[in-house]
């Protein structure tokens, strides 16, 4: 039921409150950023992944405010609800996709997001230099965005891609792990 509600909210917000931009503009802009990073770091793809994640982190910390402003959602009661909200509201309103949530770990702290479509990676073919296929996670900015956004609602998570159709895998999948809930910060003691 949490899933159905999230889907309804996501659909509603997407239809009524989101300014749309041309999808190709997004794809090409993102592609340019990744290509520039690959250039700057001399095809050190491990470093490129890291930079993308860092950029995403900074985006996520801001995007979460827009998410709440637009969706009017409340804080999620548990991590399952969070996962549904990420997929059906977050991804829906910002990218108009709803990755499938599946593969929960028994302790309810890990799940997999399966991207049936990925607007960031349209038109993309990884360079044929023998290592991009093994090292570059092209859409790695998404892992950072999730990390930054969830940190702002006091969840420390870890996220990484486990497969990518760009690398020749069957699916594009991201694994998300809840590390811990963070406590409220107290003001510094000035007594």
């Amino acid at each position, binding site marked *: 039921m949490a899933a159905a509600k999230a889907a309804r909210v996501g659909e509603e917000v997407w239809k009524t409150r989101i300014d749309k931009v041309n999808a190709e503009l997004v794809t090409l802009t993102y592609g340019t950023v990744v290509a520039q990073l690959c250039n700057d770091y001399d095809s050190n793809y491990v470093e490129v992944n890291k930079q993308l994640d860092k950029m995403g982190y900074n985006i996520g910390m*801001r995007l979460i405010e*827009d998410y*709440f402003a637009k969706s009017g959602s409340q804080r999620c009661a548990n991590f399952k609800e969070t996962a549904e909200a990420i997929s059906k509201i977050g991804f829906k309103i910002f990218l108009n996709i709803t990755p499938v949530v599946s593969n929960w770990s028994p302790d309810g702290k890990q799940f997999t997001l399966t991207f049936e479509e990925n607007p960031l990676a349209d038109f993309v073919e990884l360079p044929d230099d023998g290592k991009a296929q093994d090292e570059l996670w092209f859409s790695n900015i998404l892992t950072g965005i999730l990390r930054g956004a969830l940190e702002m609602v006091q969840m420390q998570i870890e996220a990484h891609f486990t497969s990518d159709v760009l690398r020749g895998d069957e699916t594009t999948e991201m694994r998300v792990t809840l590390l811990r809930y963070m406590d409220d910060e107290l003001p510094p003691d000035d007594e």
Partner: protein
Amino acid sequence: MVVYSFYIFDRHAECIYKRKYLPPGHKAPGSGLPPSRPTSSAGSEADTGNTNVSEARPPSKALSAEDDAKLIFGTVFSLRNMVRKLGGVDDNFVSYRTAHYKLHYYETPTNLKFVMVTDTKMNNLRIVLHQIYVGLYVEYVVKNPLSPVEHPGGVGVDCETFEVGLDQFVNSSLQG
């Protein structure tokens, strides 16, 4: 209806924006209360109600603006925690009122706290504070690409678009 002051606290419990309204000397019509109503000293004011002196607040009694902000944070933080203990994690307090002022509170899921102190006749401002968050804070502070992500010392929140927007909003929908 009079707005006395407005504060924003971030998730690190720091006051990232504070604003006092009412220039000194201005007197709220029909109110016997001294206009410069710092919350910290309101409790010791019970006897000035009918003397009608406007600026005669001994400066030694008033706390500094920083201390005011700290005091307010401590108050809303404790109240919110108490409310959650009694009413469950989803519960939150909306406002409280004393003989001299009313404090309105809104907290976002990202732990930003919006506080507005007004006169006691003001209606519930929860929605207004939400509108300030959605229409002004998110638009002009969060989405400003050149402002920092976090705002230690209020950097980035003190931008002109936000302040002008806030002034217009407060003047048009609350004051008067």
